[in-house]
């Protein structure tokens, strides 16, 4: 028998049949009896005081059932960083002041969407315009307008990380270079826009169906904002059309639909338009980097000093996490003996900048991997070699921060080295760029201040052997329902189709922090494995008695066969044991429970994945346009639970992270996003997509379920840097501000030519 019978196999997704037949129901598809439709009025100004809102005309429009403004709220402010009251800065429905173009000021519920939209035009808002500031560098100046009361210099969050003696180390360096980078914004562009159906009934209980990455966060935040008990708020996540970091904060659709429903005792549905999705939901945090890097002649990196200012936008959201993590991951994946990071997040009058796949790590990886290539060139060292020299290894301690247990970085470097050598001599204007990366498997810091375990699961075994798995994990497309079902089946020794998963419904599932920070496989996987083991233990107790096994024999279940580990032929059918156990226990249901919170794993994460990526480009030197030809990734994520899932994560990351390097951007003018439609926001499509190749590297993570760790966001980290390095290899110009557009490449080529003349 092979070691595993379920995990590591190429299986169909558990939600597959529904999704390929169009029968999967998303929040977007939900229609309830007596349901109303809501729309939200948003500020057209980046910074203004609300003098008066006159809703009377809108209320008189036939078909309009309710109009709410900030006055109808409890006036509370929230954020996911609720451990820190000073960071709870977002009212959602503004009461006195708007802080960006798109800030909500009123919401309408009507019999249909058209009527609701018509009503928005009838709401008269009187604004007193205030001076606004858009650039974070300007925002932190003395004379800048203050965006939040009491926040000096508009500095929202600061973060300092330091180890070793940085100043002393720089003195010992043979070579030091200092560079500046700008990392742009990026939109998540989930195919399903933010949406919610809220139903508050005469029983005073609220149910919300919503497209979310964390039903638990939404439950807790909605309850607090509306003055309800958490237990009276049930949040259900139907199938969800993508998240990528945009859907684990309380959003305007969820809040306004709930508020309107409470007022009317009728279900209210709000679906954000694509334009609202671009302008009034959160986005990737733009970052301005200054980095000083020092090394010995042989390429040993001794010290790194990083200063970052991030454009925070109007509110905190998850932007504080982005600031923390960009600081930590600026040291990745290398062993810097001396390191210093100072990060500042500035409020600006722009759409709030927050979490997007990888938090701040795609930014820090672009910066770090660009600079290490520059350093390697200056010192005359091969890019792979310098990464080998400094790269992290298993059992490495990041001083005061993290303990790295498994780490396959060096095997990944070997594989990419081989790949590049195989490609051989390239034609002119072609180049391969390399980028190494690492990422966390879920976050440790409890900024949400939850008293619950980070992950939990319940396994219930039915009389027929069918298993109901209850978990708060949120499948937003990444496939956690499948991965967790596989883990449950493997641990319990049954088949995948024996499992029925019930996920992300706070009414029936234990709390889980949700799908962010690449945490579900490791954290929820551990909880599921523990719950399954708990249920299995109950079965094995009966089996042992029935088989009359000597107590020195260990028992297990595999492939629905309950048996002695050392004498697998001696055993009983799983189905018989289930029946016997239930009968023998006075009919008590078999329930297994599991939970997981990382302990003694440092400040950041219980485990880290690593990889190296090589991007090959061909540059047209007359126009600056380049073609992404191939992206090859050597990746290690511990034991692979769901190989089809990992392929999908990796190839999808190339589309998204390649887009970050290649074309995606959110240009602004006076706080207004200039491309708020998919026609104007450029995304990689099938004709632009490069070939992708995956080189698997085996590792085993002791902290993860069956040795697994993350394989989601980390893959978004390397691509922009790999592209930048590839363009440099191809034509010798380096672009330090994202995205690397043809226009920037051409301009750099011309400057290079002029300098040569």
């Amino acid at each position, binding site marked *: 028998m092979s070691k595993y019978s379920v995990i590591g196999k190429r299986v169909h997704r558990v939600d597959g049949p529904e999704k390929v037949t*169009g029968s999967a129901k998303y929040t977007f598809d939900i229609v309830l009896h007596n349901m109303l439709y809501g729309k939200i009025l948003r500020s057209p100004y980046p910074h203004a005081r609300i003098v008066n809102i006159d809703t009377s005309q809108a209320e008189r429009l036939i078909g309009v059932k309710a109009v709410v403004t900030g006055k109808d709220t409890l006036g509370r402010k929230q954020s996911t960083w609720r451990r820190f009251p000073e960071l709870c800065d977002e009212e959602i429905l503004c009461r006195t002041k708007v802080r960006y173009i798109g800030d909500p000021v009123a919401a309408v519920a009507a019999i249909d969407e058209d009527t609701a939209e018509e009503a928005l035009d009838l709401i008269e808002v009187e604004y007193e315009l205030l001076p606004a500031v858009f650039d974070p560098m300007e925002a932190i100046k003395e004379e800048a307008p203050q965006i939040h009361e009491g926040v000096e210099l508009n500095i929202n969050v600061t973060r300092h990380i330091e180890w070793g003696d940085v100043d002393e180390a720089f003195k010992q360096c043979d070579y030091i270079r200092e560079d500046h980078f700008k990392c742009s914004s990026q939109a998540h562009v989930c195919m399903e*826009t933010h949406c919610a159906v809220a139903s508050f009934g005469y029983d005073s209980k609220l149910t919300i169906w919503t497209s979310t990455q964390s039903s638990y966060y939404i439950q807790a935040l909605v309850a607090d904002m509306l003055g309800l008990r958490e237990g009276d708020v049930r949040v259900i996540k139907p199938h969800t059309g993508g998240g990528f970091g945009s859907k684990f904060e309380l959003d305007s659709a969820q809040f306004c639909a709930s508020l309107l429903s409470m007022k009317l005792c009728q279900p209210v549905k709000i679906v954000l338009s694509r334009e609202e999705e671009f302008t009034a939901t959160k986005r990737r945090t733009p970052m301005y980097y200054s980095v000083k890097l020092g090394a010995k002649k042989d390429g040993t990196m001794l010290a790194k000093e990083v200063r970052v200012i991030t454009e925070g936008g109007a509110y905190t959201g998850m932007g504080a996490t982005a600031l923390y993590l960009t600081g930590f991951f600026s040291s990745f994946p290398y062993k810097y003996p001396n390191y210093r990071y100072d990060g500042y997040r500035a409020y600006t009058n722009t759409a709030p900048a927050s979490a997007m796949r990888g938090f701040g790590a795609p930014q820090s990886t672009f910066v770090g991997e660009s600079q290490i290539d520059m350093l390697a060139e200056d010192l005359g060292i091969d890019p792979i070699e310098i990464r080998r020299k400094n790269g992290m290894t298993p059992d490495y301690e990041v001083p005061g921060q993290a303990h790295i247990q498994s780490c396959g970085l060096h095997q990944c470097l070997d594989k990419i080295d081989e790949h590049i050598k195989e490609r051989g001599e390239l034609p002119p204007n072609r180049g391969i760029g390399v980028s190494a990366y690492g990422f966390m498997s879920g976050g440790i810091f409890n900024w949400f201040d939850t008293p619950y375990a980070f992950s939990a699961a319940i396994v219930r075994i039915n009389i027929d052997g069918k298993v109901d798995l209850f978990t708060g994990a949120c499948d937003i497309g990444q496939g956690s329902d499948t991965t967790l079902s596989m883990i449950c089946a493997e641990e319990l020794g049954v088949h995948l189709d024996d499992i029925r998963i019930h996920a992300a419904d706070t009414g029936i599932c234990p709390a889980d922090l949700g799908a962010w920070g690449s945490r579900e496989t490791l954290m929820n996987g551990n909880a599921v494995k523990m719950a399954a083991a708990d249920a299995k233990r109950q079965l094995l107790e009966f089996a042992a008695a029935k088989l009359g096994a000597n107590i020195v024999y260990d028992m297990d279940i595999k492939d629905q066969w309950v048996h002695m580990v050392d004498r697998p032929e001696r055993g009983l059918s799983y189905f018989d044991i289930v029946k016997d156990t239930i009968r023998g226990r006075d009919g008590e249901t078999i329930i297994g429970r599991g939970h997981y919170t990382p302990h003694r794993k440092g400040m950041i994460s219980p485990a880290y994945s690593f990889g190296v990526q090589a991007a090959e480009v061909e540059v047209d030197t007359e126009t600056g346009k380049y073609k992404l030809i191939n992206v090859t990734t050597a990746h290690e994520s511990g034991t692979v639970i769901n190989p089809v899932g990992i392929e999908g994560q990796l190839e999808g990351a190339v589309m*998204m992270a390649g887009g970050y390097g290649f074309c995606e951007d959110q240009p602004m003018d006076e706080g207004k996003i200039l491309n708020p439609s998919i*026609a104007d926001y450029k995304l990689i499509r*099938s004709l632009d*997509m490069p070939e992708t190749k995956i080189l698997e590297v085996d590792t085993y993570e002791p902290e993860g379920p069956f040795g697994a760790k993350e394989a989601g966001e980390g893959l978004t980290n390397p691509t922009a840097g790999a592209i930048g390095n590839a363009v440099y290899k191809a034509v010798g110009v380096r672009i330090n501000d994202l995205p690397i557009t043809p226009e920037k490449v051409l301009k750099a080529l011309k400057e290079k030519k002029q300098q040569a003349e």
Partner: protein
Amino acid sequence: MKKELRFTVNGQPYELYIKPKTILVEVLRAHLGLTGTKRGCDSSSCGACTVILNGMAVKSCSVLALQANGGEVLTVEGLAKGNELHPLQKAFLDHGAFQCGFCTSGMLMSSKALLDENPNPTKEQIKEGIDGNICRCTGYNSIIRALTGVVKGEYKEEK
């Protein structure tokens, strides 16, 4: 002011009275309850609403429903025959050619239109065939592999 719309959807004839401003995707979703077809943008850019109208892939968010009067529409709900999945659906399952699934219906309909017209497309033609559809999850390559599998005859339609 409402007008009559007579057309067939997935082989079933319908007669409806609708406002002329109603776009096709709304008739399918709201009037007929066929919510498999999605809407992802307001600018005819994402392809999530793709259906086959009179044999051609169209974006049903950019066609007035009345323009389909007298026509034949095929949506994702019309692909499977009872509980027997269409070869494309099987291939999508095998190759993991979807994640969140929101673009999948449109992607399947573009794929179907492509293969109906050209049963032996090259890889470049497959890429062209789905270029009007955005997928934010998969990076397209698994979808291309799924279509390649169908083209190679690995997924036969049950007779």
